[in-house]
């Protein structure tokens, strides 16, 4: 059963990736695009030889593929982080940004944009994600140390510390936008979230961290299951609650920080996808984590395809589309499930 679910979702992901890489302003046949993609894979690639031009190849390989893969990575990362935070907080409203990672990253990115005046476009290209990541991780540690007590990290303290630090950094972002000069659309842009800039360099930096963290998080799936019963219960059942919680908080924040640093702040995915998958596959984290990752990736890939094609030549921020398309779908799922279980 689980294998079937994963398989179906994986096929969905492949399908949406293929679909997303065939749409764009350059008119290209589906066959050519897929041919170019397959052609990039060693060994297997030699089988395919098409009629495409070098321009078409560079558009697909240098522009569309990185964009699609960024969406896959970010979608998967945010969904996994959502599952983790909802699991440890046992709170349906928890999302990857609950510990203030988003506003921390936003603060870092705004710093890079506003004070990186001397940098060229290329400098900003590296400075923004780097500063976003630093901002996100420092916020996470700040929240963590504020919430820490001598006997562990109570969930409520963590949540409150997250809210406090998050609103502080949000106000810092607003302050910077208010006092900065006219060239702030880059900052605004970044805060909306999306993939206006996606390059292989970003993926090469982000992919290893996201994949590694995901695997490690998956190893905690059973602990998360036990913790659904409540921390005391879990402790009685032999789970080292504080250790598990600490590690998961760090892993979840790390994965979010990396995702945010390449995509900006994309809402909805991390909050809704875990709920959606819980309705569809049940609350067992061993299936919930991989299925959320695959579903989140597919949804974000499709939303991004919509964002860059619907109002051509204008590129919409992907975060707007995720909320606009995702929220009604979630309401539908909620109402449907209301008739049976929830």
């Amino acid at each position, binding site marked *: 059963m689980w294998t079937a679910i994963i398989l179906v979702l994986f096929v969905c992901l492949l399908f949406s990736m293929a679909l997303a890489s065939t749409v764009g302003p350059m008119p290209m046949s589906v066959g050519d695009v897929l041919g170019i993609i397959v052609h990039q894979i060693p060994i297997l690639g030699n089988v395919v030889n098409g009629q495409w031009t070098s321009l078409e190849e560079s558009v697909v390989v240098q522009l569309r593929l990185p964009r699609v893969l960024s969406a896959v990575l970010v979608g998967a990362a945010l969904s996994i982080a959502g599952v983790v935070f909802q699991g440890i907080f046992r709170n349906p409203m928890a999302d990857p940004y609950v510990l203030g990672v988003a506003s921390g990253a936003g603060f870092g990115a705004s710093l890079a944009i506003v004070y990186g005046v001397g940098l060229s476009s290329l400098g900003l290209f590296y400075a923004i994600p780097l500063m976003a990541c630093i901002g996100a991780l420092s916020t996470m540690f700040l929240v963590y140390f504020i919430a820490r007590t001598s006997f562990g990290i109570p969930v409520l303290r963590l949540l409150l510390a997250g809210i406090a630090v998050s609103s502080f950094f949000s106000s810092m972002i607003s302050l910077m936008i208010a006092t900065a000069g006219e060239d702030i659309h880059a900052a605004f842009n970044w805060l909306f979230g999306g993939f206006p800039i996606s390059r292989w360099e970003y993926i090469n930096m982000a992919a290893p961290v996201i994949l590694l963290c995901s*695997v490690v998080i998956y190893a905690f799936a059973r602990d998360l299951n036990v913790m659904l019963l409540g921390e005391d219960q879990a402790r009685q059942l032999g789970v080292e609650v504080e250790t598990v919680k600490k590690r998961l908080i760090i892993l979840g924040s790390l994965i979010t920080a990396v995702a945010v640093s390449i995509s900006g702040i994309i809402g909805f995915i991390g909050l809704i996808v875990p709920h959606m998958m819980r309705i569809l596959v049940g609350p067992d984290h061993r299936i919930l984590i991989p299925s959320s990752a695959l579903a989140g990736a597919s949804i974000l890939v499709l939303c991004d395809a919509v964002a860059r094609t619907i109002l051509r*030549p204008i590129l919409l921020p992907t975060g707007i589309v995720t909320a606009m398309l995702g929220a009604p779908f979630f309401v539908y799922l909620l109402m449907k499930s209301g008739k049976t279980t929830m």
Partner: protein
Amino acid sequence: MIKAVIKAIIIGLILMLTIEIVAATNASAPIIIVDNLGRTVTIKSSERIVSIGPSCTEILYALGLGDRVVGVDRYSDYPPEVVSKQYINNWWNPDPEEVIALNPDLVLYSVGSVAAVEALEKAGLTVVALKPATIDDIPENIKMVGFITGKSQKAESLASTLGRRIDEIKNKTTNVTIKPKVYIEYWYPPPWAFGPNTWGHQLIELAGGINAFGDAATGWVQTTDEEVIARNPDIIISLCGAMHHASLEDIKGRPGWGTISAVAKRAVYLIDENLFVRPGPRIIDGLETLAKILHPELSGEATTFTFLIDTTTLRSGIQTFNISGLMKVDILTIKSAGNCTLAVTIQELGPELPANRKLVGKYLDIDCSVPTGLAFMLRIYYNEDQLKTLSVSEGSLKIYVWDKDGQRWIMLNSAVNESENYVEATVTHLSYFALTGEPAPAFWEQRIPLWLFVTSLILIITIVGIGVYIAHKKGKSV
């Protein structure tokens, strides 16, 4: 909107004529004008002026009113002495209190928001709003500002000079048939372009070009790399300012951009962004710069030479044409399908040569009215000094031709005549030509290999898959 502005200008002019007489007789009488928003404003004096909007500041300074300016918005940075003035923080929504603190008797405001005009007025300030709709409104506005401030004479002469410069460009570009597609970039990444209803768009059209993003729904267009590549502009204007500057090298390094016609021909120009966004006197500088880039042939620097190929004389021998001046080229026709005109254009810019080749002299763009069935011998002359400065060896000289379909340079079978200093090659296809030589071998740049990433991705997916499988099994056994 435009109607209202025109109406405002007409009323303004009539009032100007009538009031000028009054002003002449009584200097302290209040001046009444109708500003660009159609508001009737009574101005008692203009000794302390606050200028909100860089274009207002530039107009005031152009009229020699710098001494009367007591405050500017923080974006005003031209002329450079403006920075010593008191500044107010916001241009779009200026705080009336900040303005009142400077105790002005006149506020000149480049709109901006209409609500802000009302707010300033409610605060008891005398506000004149400037909102030119087209470039022709700018000289009119200068006249209006001159009239208000008692500098009518200076304003008239400045306005008529600007008007003449605008008309000159218009006259030159109205009849152009080939309009290059222009992409003005004011931010990257991601690419931001000027859509319709922007000054950039208007300037492109006036300069005899087509805005590559003229069809967008918004004024400022945030777009994607692929969109620019697909639109394939002939010319890229990269606006540079404090926050953004991209050279040809930067642009070439962007994925997929190398094939854009403008980048391949190296028709990428860096221009000060303030010449394109501020409806002040300097926007006409921007227009002239743009016109020169878009249509160099209109500014009197002819670089095209035409020749008539006559098939009757062709049979009896070889025809030689000689281009002197910029560069010496001989064309020896061998074969022609019929009488035709051959056009040779000498160009500064051309598609980028292979990394190991250096250009000797200039690019040639050769075209013919009957391009098929034509064959000729192309001789390009060089001199020893040229080679020395480029450190190119004489033996390595070759003529290259641009393959338009394959988007690459192809080496022609060329022979070097070292005693007479020319290189010759037989040409059957018309395109760009370049005489090139080989300098010291260039350094190779390495790319991050895609296969490495894809294989590691597959590997990790496999590991995760195995993990899922094992966990699944364990889950069953429990």
